């Protein structure tokens, strides 16, 4: 009761502050949080560019809210991709009076920051955080616009059955929260589809010798091997599969597609299949137009996640305009129920705040390069 009251009070105070700001100079602040310095700085800058582009395009339409002309403005904060800094900058954004936030970049920073935004009662739209835990904290202010890891297992299972026509599947996981969760979802998905798990094996995230588990798997004659784990282990695993003369291809769903994988696999990763959340720019409904606009504005290529930051701002602005209010208490219910056509696809949220029907891109190693081969999920 007490906390509820407090939250309501803060929310009220904040919304009155926000509307006061809006009245003073008709400016609506939208926050962006990401790594703008440090080793991931290019990714943060890319997010900021995408978000700024969405702000500019929203302002170009001379938006009116509650009959008053307003200007949207982006406030960027640097979380250095560090969970502790993320909490600090989240608080700073709240103090500056933003009405909603796009960020943070990864799951590790999005989770602690989510509490700050929840306490302030404003929306947080995470563009690319894929850990399911982010939306499992029970905060009705947390949203994400990319498929999460459990979805990855589900969609990968579907793809294994329908496209790869696998019937006898061996599953290995690295016993981390990520790998095991992924493998369990995958198993659930393929068993529901009628395929058989012929071998369920476990390694840990430091294992480098996969010979013993692969010997077991080999004796079961699988037609597909699924690994819930990431590139640094997937590459030696792929090598050992080839060396033991196993014909079944290796498949993963998240954490495979990287240069590290190709380098460590030393040309023996050929044919490995992996899903990654989101679509390649060319496959996004608004991808071409976005890419062009981005290049014109910034004279550089899209680094990685700019379209998702663009859509994060887009969906926030759409909810605010539809609710005709910058008051989070008014626009949040609209955001929860929204169906918004973004450049990355249709954005709608489930009860937890996850993207409904997320799309995944299927990559395969061909000529020692990761090539997108098709799209899974969506619809």
């Amino acid at each position, binding site marked *: 009761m007490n906390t509820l009251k407090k939250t309501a009070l803060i929310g009220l105070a904040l919304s009155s502050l926000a509307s006061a700001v809006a009245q003073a100079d008709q400016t609506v602040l939208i926050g962006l949080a990401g790594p703008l310095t440090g080793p991931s700085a290019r990714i943060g800058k890319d997010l900021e560019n995408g978000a700024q582009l969405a702000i500019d395009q929203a302002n170009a339409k001379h938006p009116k809210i509650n009959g008053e002309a307003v200007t949207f403005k982006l406030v960027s904060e640097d979380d250095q991709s560090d969970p502790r800094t993320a909490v600090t900058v989240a608080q700073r954004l709240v103090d500056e009076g933003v009405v909603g936030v796009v960020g943070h970049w990864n799951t590790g920073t999005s989770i602690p920051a989510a509490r700050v935004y929840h306490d302030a009662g404003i929306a947080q739209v995470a563009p690319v955080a894929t850990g399911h835990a982010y939306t499992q904290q029970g905060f009705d202010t947390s949203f994400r616009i990319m498929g999460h890891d459990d979805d990855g297992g589900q969609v990968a299972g579907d793809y294994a059955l329908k496209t790869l026509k696998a019937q006898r599947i061996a599953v290995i996981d690295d016993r981390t929260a990520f790998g095991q969760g992924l493998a369990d979802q995958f198993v659930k998905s393929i068993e529901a589809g009628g395929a058989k798990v012929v071998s369920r094996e*476990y390694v840990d995230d430091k294992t480098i010798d996969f010979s013993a588990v692969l010997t077991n798997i080999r004796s079961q004659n699988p037609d597909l091997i699924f690994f819930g784990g990431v590139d640094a282990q997937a590459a030696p695993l792929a090598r050992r599969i080839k060396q033991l003369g196993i014909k079944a291809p290796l498949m993963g769903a998240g954490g495979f597609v990287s240069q590290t994988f190709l380098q460590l696999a030393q040309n023996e990763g050929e044919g490995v299949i992996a899903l990654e959340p989101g679509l390649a720019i060319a496959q996004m409904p608004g991808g071409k137009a976005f890419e062009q606009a981005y290049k014109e504005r910034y004279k550089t290529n899209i680094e990685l996640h700019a379209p998702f930051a663009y859509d994060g701002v887009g969906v926030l602005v759409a909810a605010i305009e539809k609710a005709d209010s910058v008051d989070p208490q008014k626009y949040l219910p609209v955001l929860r129920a929204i169906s918004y056509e973004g450049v990355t696809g249709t954005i709608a949220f489930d009860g937890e705040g996850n993207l409904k029907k997320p799309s995944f891109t299927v990559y395969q190693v061909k000529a020692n390069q990761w090539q997108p081969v098709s799209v899974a999920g969506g619809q």
Partner: protein
Amino acid sequence: MDGFIQQLLNGLMTGSLYALVALGYTMVYGILRIINFAHGDVLMIGALVGLSVIRLVQAAWPALPPVLVLLCATLVAMAVCAVLAVVIERVAYRRLRHAPRLAPLISGIGVSLLLQTIAMLVWTRNPQMFPQLLSLAPIEVLAGASAHPAITNVTALTTIAIALSVMVALLVLVERTRFGRAMRAVAENPQVASLMGISPNRIIVITFAIGGALAALAGIMMASNYGSAHFYMGFLPGIKAFTAAVLGGIGNLKGAMLGGLLLGLIEALGTGYLGAATNGVFGSNYQDVFAFIVLIAVLVFRPSGLLGERLATRA
């Protein structure tokens, strides 16, 4: 049956690597009665130094045959690690030789962290590709016997052969030479040994150097087999080899060899047959648990390990 042979080969390969590393633990323990916890990281440094040497040599003489490149890298890495191990002894252990047992343990862990951090700074935190200089092309064992003949390769066979011959050489060194006699004398009683004209410090330095060189050898063989090397790679073989040394009876050379090979075999066969034997109740997720159950069982009945001598008589 072919699965059994395959698991034996798998176990023999990992086991011989464990044994090489376990020798380093056991030699140091035999002489100083301390556990050198930085030993696993010496292995890691060996693999990464070897990697850098390979890159340099390949850049300088691209026409050199791969076997020579690998040999060159191995020798340099062994030399570097021998020196490194001696430095570790000088810096982290010598001053603490008469301190309570916990002190060298802590300084060993400190050195281990230091080495990892240095390696992370020098070779970055990303796993590095370790070039394939010996062939990994499959060689079928008992070809044609079944649909899935057991498979091995030149790298694995070389690893096993080198590990076994190094172990035999070490046994000969310790049991048949003057130096070996001096080593055993220092292990038994350093004071009396020094009265007989043996310099315990000299013996200890040489022991550390041999242990470091063996760790480097194991590191390079590991990296060649798995195709990658990174700053954290010493942790797992370090723990496993320590376990192997205890299993065989720490302080005993033959024990370390036996313990290493046994641990490798237990792991491979455990992974291979635990699931089938228990009808899927225990699978490969219990591989490590199984290895440690064996260790505990051995220690219950033979507290000083399989071949360990009782230490109660030591002064």
